[in-house]
């Protein structure tokens, strides 16, 4: 019996040892397969667009690997999870060498020394090559280049030409001012009893963040700005800001409501977009959403036109540098990382990138490209590129925007007035600026 018990004891000890050793072995294998070896460049792209994934994996990466002595391991991370994945990767020391993100995050990563300044690398490029890169200035934080924008984006007014004709409006003369927009929306809105069955116009309103971006367009048009030049003074609650939000609120609330659908997902909605289903006659939309409509509902897309940016005090709209690439400060392959970014920004690749993703090419020389100009979801945005303005590059911007977005939603839903909402958001943001 004693012999038996000892046997069991030894067997158990052996099992534990085997388990521990197999655990160690697994760990080592996982580390090796995790792309930490010297010859692998890890890249995270934001988004999960199938065309983009196919182009990057089948064209871009093989072409880069053929020219450079490095393996590239690309991972596509859904936009909604990108910040989460990055923050945990930073904390765990497993951040990729190169990662994509929107401009809004640039200052925060730069302030925390998570990304490197790219000026030294840029300085090695020919001067005319650098001058050709359209959105470089918007990728600077405190004068240093921290993100290389891959494309631009923007919000423009799209409208259904057929519905314009039905309502007795001239589709060749789209609204150019707020007053014209309001007047056209009143002509185009369709009501059934108390409810609206077709909105005259809608703005991006999927969530509070997109509502704040929609507000940005009207804020800029009214001559206002989110922050003062110092980057610490909140100015969105200026008279211009209150007028802009008041105009938006009047579209969705009050006696003469012409819009509905707050909170409905419209970004990238393609065939389900209210412009396609006929539940809206005009819509402020971004280039990616228009592209999705052209791809998923080409018949209706042929009846959709895009107007230049609206004008109130200024002609402007929300947009500018879209997603770009950063180099992680912890990367051990910074030179290779830069080579990858530079390769992606070569004219042929910069063109191919917007062909699959949409948006405004990162190079000014591509503005006259006949193939890009022939795309009805690219050309209007290229034409308006100089009018687009984006988020301020300050470290706390994503927090400030959230405070603003929550109040804008409250105003659009009619729980507070435009003025109260912006003042409250400004007060909260001022505290956040102080804490940072």
């Amino acid at each position, binding site marked *: *019996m004693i012999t038996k018990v000892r046997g*069991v*004891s030894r067997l*158990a000890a052996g099992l*534990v040892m085997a388990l521990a050793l197999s655990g160690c072995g697994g760990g080592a294998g996982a580390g090796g397969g995790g792309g930490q070896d010297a010859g692998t460049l890890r890249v995270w792209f934001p988004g999960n667009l199938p065309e983009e994934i196919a182009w990057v994996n089948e064209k871009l990466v093989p072409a880069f690997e053929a020219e450079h002595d490095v393996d590239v391991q690309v991972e596509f991370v859904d936009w909604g999870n990108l910040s989460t994945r990055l923050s945990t990767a*930073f904390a765990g020391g497993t951040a990729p060498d190169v990662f994509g993100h929107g401009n809004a995050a640039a200052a925060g990563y730069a302030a*925390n020394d998570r990304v490197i300044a790219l000026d030294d690398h840029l300085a090695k490029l020919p001067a005319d090559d650098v001058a050709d890169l359209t959105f470089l200035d918007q990728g600077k934080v405190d004068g240093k280049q921290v993100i290389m924008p891959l494309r631009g984006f923007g919000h423009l007014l799209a409208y259904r030409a057929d519905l314009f004709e039905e309502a007795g409006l001239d589709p060749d003369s789209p609204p150019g001012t707020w007053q014209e927009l309001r007047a056209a929306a009143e002509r185009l809105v369709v009501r059934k009893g108390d409810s609206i069955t077709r909105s005259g116009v809608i703005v991006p309103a999927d969530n509070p963040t997109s509502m704040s971006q929609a507000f940005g367009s009207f804020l800029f048009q009214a001559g206002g700005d989110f922050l003062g030049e110092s980057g610490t003074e909140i100015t969105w609650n200026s008279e211009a800001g209150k007028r802009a939000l008041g105009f938006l609120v009047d579209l969705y609330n009050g006696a003469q409501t012409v819009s509905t659908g707050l909170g*409905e997902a419209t970004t990238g909605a393609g065939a389900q977009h209210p412009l396609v289903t006929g539940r809206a006659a005009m819509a402020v939309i971004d280039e990616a959403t228009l592209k999705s409509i052209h791809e998923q509902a080409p018949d209706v897309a042929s009846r959709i036109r895009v107007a230049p940016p609206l004008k109130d005090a200024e002609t402007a709209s929300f947009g500018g540098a879209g997603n770009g690439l950063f180099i992680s400060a912890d990367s051990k392959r910074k030179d290779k990382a830069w080579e990858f970014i530079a390769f992606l920004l070569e004219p042929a690749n910069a063109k191919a990138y917007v062909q699959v993703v949409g948006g405004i090419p990162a190079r000014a020389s591509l503005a006259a490209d006949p193939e890009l100009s022939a795309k009805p979801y690219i050309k209007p945005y290229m034409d308006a590129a100089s009018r687009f303005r984006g988020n301020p590059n300050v470290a706390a911007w994503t927090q400030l925007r*959230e405070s603003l977005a929550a109040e804008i*939603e409250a105003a659009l839903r009619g729980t507070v007035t435009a003025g109260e909402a912006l003042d409250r958001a400004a007060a909260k943001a001022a505290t956040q600026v102080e804490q940072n």
Partner: protein
Amino acid sequence: MVTETRPAGASAGPDPAGPVRRARRRSLYATQRRAGWILVLPAVITLALVTIVPIGYGFYLSLTSYNPVERGGPRFHGFDGYLAVLTSGQFWQAIWVTVQYAFGTLVLAVPAALALALLVNGRFPGVALFRAVLYLPRVVPLVAVSMIWLWLYSHDGLFNYLLDLVGLPPVNYLTDENTALPSLIVMRAWKALGGSMIIFLAGLQGIPNSLLEAASVDGCGRWRTLRHVILPLLVPITTYVVVVDLIYLAQSFSEIYILTSGGPLSSTTVVNMLIYNEAFEHYRLGNASAMAFLLFCLIFGLAYLSIRTMTKGGGR
């Protein structure tokens, strides 16, 4: 394992082989203890690594200020995070939403599950299929169920289509702050129905027939039998269903993340949604951890109260 037998009539005096036997026995027990420890060691290590250490680290984080994007790691600041959370209106709003969500779902799901269990406890053709169909939502992952209901609730979804058929205007189920939470509750109750029904069914089938027959002999009708015999006997089962559902519901996240992301106007921001936002939108992992421990206290308190309330009067 080793039994000592003594022949009948043998002397009870000192055994010359006693010290050797005792030493051997001690050695055997020591070996047994060692074997026991070694056998449970993998489970202990696993439990420690995947449960106890993360909980301990989570509690440590709750006493720190930690932004994972910043370099330097967590900075200890004691109970400041708990104080900040407890004085935050947003947290108490999220607690209120969580309580409404959990109890709203229970109020819908538990009576409906009991009614269905009573229905399928009978014998009729196709009862097995009926039970299987009712149980189906339980085995479908919550994320998949949420995606289906996202379409059902969408402007052009099935529910608005049905309303349109009878001439009623569409409802903005998930995008109106007045209807979003009730819509989530209906979806979650539907999901919880099958599992609770099966547990009630097991409880019903465990009630001895003799009791039901005795009630019948005593002249009890179906209603009185249900009220005075079946329901009292189901109290332990009901307590189990309510407490387990409550624990799960108070931790809800995925369905809310998919259907409303906590909006509109934070009307569906439950505590777990707030914890997610705090940790991964605002990068305040310390406060998020403090919220998680406070949520644990809430769940523990609600579960304890439920057990006390439901077992009062002898139902055990």
